[in-house]
Structures are given as C-alpha cells and as structure tokens.
C-alpha cells in the first residue's frame, strides 16, 4: 500500500462537510502558515518538495511561484485551474466533489505564500454541481474565519471565489483561462509576458492545477523534504490517476510515483487487469494529448527496463518509444478497439476545441479529422497516411498554445505504432464498412507483409 496524502481521508464519513474536515485536522496548514511561517519560507518548502504541476506539463510548482512579480507593487492573484477537460482525465472532479475543503485550504495557504489577496477557482461549466459544492464550502470556510479580513489575527486578508466556465477545453490553457476569467473568449495569449508578470487584469498571477494546490497543505504541515522522500527521483510525491477503458476497476487512484505500470494495471488494489479475456492492445498514460503506446512498450521501455509511473520513465525513449505522464488520464484499450477510429475521435475533439486563432491549428485539425474520417469509414487513399504525417508536422510547434501539439502528437504516434492498421483500413475498405461502431477486427493478428494486394 503506497502512501496517500490527498485521498487518505476520503472514506471518512462526512469529510465533505467543514465540521468533519476540521475535526480530522483540516486547515492546520493555514494556522501553521499564518502564525509561524513567512510567505517566502512556504515558497522555499514547495521548491524543496520538488512538487511538479499536476495539470499535465509537470513544471516545478515552487519555481513557478518564485517567478511571481513582487516588485511592481500590483495586486497579485492565485487562480486554480479546475477546467479539467482532457479526455481521459477526471481526477480533479473527484477531489473537489468529495473533499472540497482540501482545495480551499490549499488555496488559502498558497495565496498567503504568493501574497495574493483575491483568488479564484476557475471550474469548467459542465461541473455545475461541483461549482455549487465549492461555493457552499467557501461560505462555510468564511463563516469559520478562514477567509475575509485579518485571518486568524495575522493581518492577512483573502477573498476567494469560484468562477464558472461554459464549455471550452482551451480554457484549461492558463492564458486562455485568464481571458475567460476576464469575461472574454478563451483565446490563448502570446507569451511572454508570462502570467507571473502580467496575468489576470494585467496583474501578476499564478495559475495552478487543483491537484497541485491540494498538495500544498501536506507540504506545509510536514515539510518539503518529507514530500521529496515520497516518489522516485525527480518525480516526487503522489499523483492522482484517472483510469478508464477496458479495465476491471475504472476510477481515480492516488499512487506514489514510481509504482510500476505492471503493478498499477494488474494489482487488485488498482486496476485489477483487463475487463474481459481480450488481451491488452494499447494504452494512453496521460490524457488524449500524449502518444499512444502499443502493448510491447507498456510494461517495459525499449531498453528492456521496467516502465514506471514517473514523468521520466513514461517518457523514456522520447516519442519514438515513449509517451508522457501528462495529466494522469490513463486509457486502456483491448484488441477490439480500433486505433484508427480512436485517432479520428480524438482529432474530432481537437478540431471542435481549437479556438481558431492560429491557422495551422484551426485548419490543420479540421483536415486531420476529415482525412481520418474517410480512412475510418473505408474511403481512405494510399497517400492519406503520409498526408496526415505532413499535416501534423506543420501544426506541431507552429501555434501560440500547446493545443496544436496536443492535436498533432496522437496522430503521429498512432501512425508510428499502428501503421499496419491504417493500411488495412485503406486496402480492405469492404471489411471496414458496416462495422459496429468502435469494434474492430483484432488487428494484432494482421501482418501486412502477408496481405496480398489486389
């Protein structure tokens, strides 16, 4: 049983309510921070902890905090990114729904560390009922004296509000989120300037993921050094993984980083293996944006080492034979899943969610969707595979925000590892037409060199 620091109390009856949360030791980090620590000391602890941004990019949180502009004298803001929309990811929702005060406690302690007096939690519009849960939890915290003026007699003031989005994946990108919080369309901004210098209303702003902020109370209550002892190497601490697809026990798990992928997949404590007798075909470890990996690269890296649930091990081999930990959206496919259909499905998602600002992404995602659609439906052309590779390479790196990359990578990876499946679609259109939706033939049995071309 690995250590839990976020969900350790999730099964305590009534932990959703302020009274139970407080009785179980909640809000201790706020007391400790405001009475015993200076803001800079907290930033140092978070730096020491090695905590990395849990939204997907994995940037060190303490370093991000240290960039915030304190010299200009402008008001500073902490904004929590709860716009969880990456396909395969549903961890923040779990945390906010079942232990909302942990996020609020983290927001108060972190806002104090950053010197922010007005902070927001930006939550996606579809999580409307969680928006209400958070609003009620904030009212409880305020009534108990954890928010408002002169908190605990320390002289520190903080107001915290929840802002609701309205259905736009792009608002999970931090500058698009800020635009949306200002009441505008979610168009990402050109960086620099970074939000740490000019963010919300041109004030210095830090945007952090829900899970990142929820990790701060434990670090403050214990220490950065203690946190760094959990996990493996530069992947310190624990990570929430949302698991879905063809597995026995889908759901949200808190794992200690460094757990082997094999154990996570097969242990009854976690995913419990596949959902049926159909064998494992592929997996996506970090949400739809990261490269898909075929069965032979899941448990072992290309070098034959055990694949671990860490930032480093999952990306071992680069894009040739590795992937990324990303947001921890862990999607598992058995051999009935059609990779072409899956890739088309993700492309449709990115096309729908592109904000339209940059031409390569606005046009390119649409072209990829169309080409994949025709391959998937049995109307593909022999040159389509190279066409897809050409389009994706022209999107990647040529857009203001990473949505372009996120749309391009899954297409490249699917072709890299499952090219024979694309070719099969193109060469045997009659077999592809009239299939039942997502179900494919078990393609792992098709060896293209044995296929006679008509």
């Amino acid at each position, binding site marked *: 049983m690995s250590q839990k620091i976020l969900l350790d109390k999730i099964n305590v009856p009534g932990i959703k309510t302020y009274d139970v949360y407080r009785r179980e030791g909640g809000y201790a980090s706020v007391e400790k921070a405001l009475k015993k620590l200076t803001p800079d000391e907290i930033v140092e602890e978070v730096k020491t902890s090695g905590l990395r941004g849990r939204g997907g990019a994995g940037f060190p949180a303490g370093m991000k905090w240290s960039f915030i502009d304190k010299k200009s004298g402008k008001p500073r803001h902490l904004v929590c990114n709860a716009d*969880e*929309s*990456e*396909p*395969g*990811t*549903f961890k923040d*929702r779990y945390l906010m729904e079942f232990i909302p005060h942990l996020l609020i406690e983290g927001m108060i302690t972190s806002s104090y560390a950053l010197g922010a007096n*007005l902070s927001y939690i930006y939550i*996606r*519009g*579809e*999580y*409307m*009922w969680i928006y*209400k849960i958070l609003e009620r939890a904030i009212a409880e915290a305020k009534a108990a004296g954890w928010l408002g003026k002169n908190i605990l007699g320390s002289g520190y003031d903080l107001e915290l*509000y929840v*802002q*609701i*989005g*309205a*259905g*736009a*994946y792009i608002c999970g990108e931090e500058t698009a989120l800020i635009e*949306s*919080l*200002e*009441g*505008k*369309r*979610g168009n990402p901004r050109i960086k620099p300037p970074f939000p740490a210098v000019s963010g919300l*209303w041109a004030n210095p702003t830090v945007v952090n993921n829900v899970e990142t902020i929820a990790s701060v109370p434990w670090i403050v209550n214990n220490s950065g050094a203690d946190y760094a002892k959990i996990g493996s190497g530069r992947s310190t601490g624990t990570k929430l993984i*949302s*698991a*879905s*697809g*063809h597995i026995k026990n*889908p*759901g*949200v798990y808190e794992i200690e980083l460094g757990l082997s992928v094999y154990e996570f997949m097969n242990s009854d404590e976690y995913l419990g293996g596949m959902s049926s007798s159909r064998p494992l075909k592929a997996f996506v470890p970090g949400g*739809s944006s990261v490269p898909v990996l075929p069965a032979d690269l899941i448990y072992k890296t290309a070098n034959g080492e055990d694949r671990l649930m860490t930032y480093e091990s999952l990306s071992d081999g680069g894009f040739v034979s590795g992937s990324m930990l990303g947001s921890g*959206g862990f*999607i598992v*496919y058995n051999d009935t*899943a059609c990779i072409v*259909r*899956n890739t088309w*499905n*993700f492309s*449709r*998602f990115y096309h*729908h*969610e592109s*904000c339209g600002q940059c031409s390569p992404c606005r046009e390119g995602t649409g072209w990829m969707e169309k080409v994949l659609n025709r391959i998937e439906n049995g109307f593909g052309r022999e040159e389509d595979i190279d066409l897809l590779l050409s389009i994706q390479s022209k999107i990647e790196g040529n857009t203001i925000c990473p949505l372009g990359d996120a749309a391009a990578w899954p297409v490249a990876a699917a072709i890299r590892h499952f090219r024979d499946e694309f070719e099969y679609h193109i060469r045997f259109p009659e077999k592809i037409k009239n299939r*039942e*939706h*997502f179900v494919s033939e078990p393609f792992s049995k098709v060896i293209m060199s044995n296929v006679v071309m008509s």
Partner: protein
Amino acid sequence: MTHTNHKQEINITETLMERINELISHYPEDKIKSALLPVLHEVQDAHDNWLSLELQDKVAEILKIKPVEVYEVVSFYTMYNQKPIGKYMFEFCQTSPCCLNGVENLMDYTCNKLGVKVGEITQDGMFEVRGVECLGACGYAPMMQLGDFYQEHLTEEKIDQLIVDCRDNKIVMHDK
C-alpha cells in the same frame, strides 16, 4: 452567430437580479465584465435554457458592456444556446473512453426510442439528443449530462427510466 425567429419573453426577476449582483460583487468594481460567464449561465437557466439576442443585449446593459462583447462570448462557448432547445437535453459524451464503453449504441437506442436524430427536438419539445465532447467522466462511462447533473454508468434500462422520469416531471435540472 445563429439567427432565429423565435421570440423570447425576458423577465429579470428580483431573485435573479440579486444573484447577478452577488456574482458582480466577486470582482473589483472596474472589472465587472469578468462576471459575464456566470451571469449568462444564471440568465439562461431562468429563460428556458437559451439566450436570444434581446436577452444578450439585456445582459450587456446590466454589465455595462457593449452588446458585441456578449455576442462573441455566447457564440464561443458551447454551453450557451442561441436558439430554443428541448426541455430535457440528453448530452451524451461521445469522446473515445465513452465510445469504448458503448455510448454510440446507446445514442442510437435513445434516438430510435424518441424518434429523432442527433440534434433534433421531439415534436412535443420535451427531448433533444446531442453528442458532446469529453465531460470528464471517463471511468463512469457511458454517461450523459442532463441539466446541471451527470447520469453515469448508463444502460438501456436507465435511459428508459430517465425518459419516464422526465415525462413525470421528476427530474431536477438546476441546482439553485
């Protein structure tokens, strides 16, 4: 921008105005435009779940911004409806993890049962079926959003029951 000939009766009640003012109070006095997204949700919920141009103009007036600043936001975000929708809108998540668990068959089933295609409203105006992108419930698939809430681990039997419950007025759409 979508054009519709449907007229909408605008009624900003006192309760609604109180909530709007509370939302506005969450932001500095010179930044009340920030309240636009939450205010649009509240106004839409109180007006049969859609926003006519007249209603959008009204929101602009309340927030003291130009109408176009409201239009561009309404047309960008998928949760704002620019024309009337079915009273009970079944929004099925159709992104890959839900598809792996059979949401496509379930959408077919629902459409056949209600006698509509995806995106159509039933003749009585009660139901509409839509396919939407990932709702963050991949581990509880297949699923759909109905009003402010999620309906997860769906089966054909659950869909049958939901349709009955909607007709019997047993479904709460908004958490106010």
